[in-house]
């Protein structure tokens, strides 16, 4: 219902919209605009769910996922579980431009990023460290485990599947419904 060009994205991150629009206005491609908009959010840590210093994993580390896709060539670049590099969508763009791959993940994605000139730096902040220590203080609740012991809805790990425990004949017996979530 509206003429082109169009920038559309999730959540009210207005600066990201502006960054993408500015890129188009200055002659950038659609791909350039997507990269600029997402990178703006990475810098600004949009609502704590984008960029460094948010959503720590169980070990307290922030890791990043990003992708970028060119709808004209169907070229895609993506990184998953990217560690210690802030500009995830920038690395995804390098995967698109400098490899024939689509998705690079984890520590090796970090090595690739370093080879492309990205800085290796700690993605944790006081905020993400505080989130993690609060989580530990609340018996690691919520978490993403099920069908393990000890009861993940009550205790921190490390966790084991019940079958391993049974094999080593431990006295611990599974009792009742220990899923603890939907």
């Amino acid at each position: 219902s509206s003429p082109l060009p169009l920038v559309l994205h999730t959540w009210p991150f207005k600066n990201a919209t502006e960054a993408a629009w500015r890129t188009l206005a200055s002659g950038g491609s659609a791909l350039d605009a997507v990269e600029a908009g997402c990178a703006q959010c990475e810098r600004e840590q949009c609502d704590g769910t984008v960029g460094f210093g948010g959503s720590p994993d169980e070990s307290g580390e922030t890791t990043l996922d990003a992708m970028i896709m060119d709808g004209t060539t169907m070229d895609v670049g993506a990184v998953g579980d990217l560690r210690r590099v802030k500009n995830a969508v920038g690395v995804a763009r390098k995967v698109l431009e400098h490899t024939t791959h689509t998705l690079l993940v984890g520590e090796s994605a970090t090595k690739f990023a370093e080879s492309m000139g990205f800085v290796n730096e700690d993605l944790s902040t006081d905020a993400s460290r505080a989130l993690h220590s609060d989580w530990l203080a609340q018996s690691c609740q919520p978490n993403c485990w099920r069908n393990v012991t000890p009861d993940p809805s009550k205790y921190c790990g490390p966790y084991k599947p019940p079958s391993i425990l049974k094999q080593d004949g431990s006295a611990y017996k599974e009792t009742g419904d220990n899923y603890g979530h939907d």
Partner: protein
Amino acid sequence: TIGMVVIHKTGHTAAGTSTNGLKFKIPGRVGDSPIPGAGAYADDAAGAAAATGDGDIMMRFLPSYQAVEYMRRGESPTVACQKVISRIQKYFPKFFGAVICANVTGSYGAACNKLPAFTQFRFMVSNSLTNQPKEERVNCI
């Protein structure tokens, strides 16, 4: 998560995402955002879409790919997004998630899964009719 789609005035499309994922995830967990067809998808022949929400669930349905395929068959962006949400609802009625869709003429829409604490989804639009970025809302279904 930010999921973004851009339709250039020439009709070229692009899509992308960036996120730090789920809080307190098991180390090594990757969500839907970096997976083409899940976090985002774009095709000049049909349009582009992007998703946000519980990636562990949403990626199983390749929501952005599915939305583009609905638009390829002529659905409006809003209906395309709604049909994707409905598909996931059947299996996971309480999932947290939303999808944005745009076709190559610049029409756009969004849809989300209604939960007690999530009844509206907010997204941003900028096009040649809005002289500045505009926040829009959609009621979840």
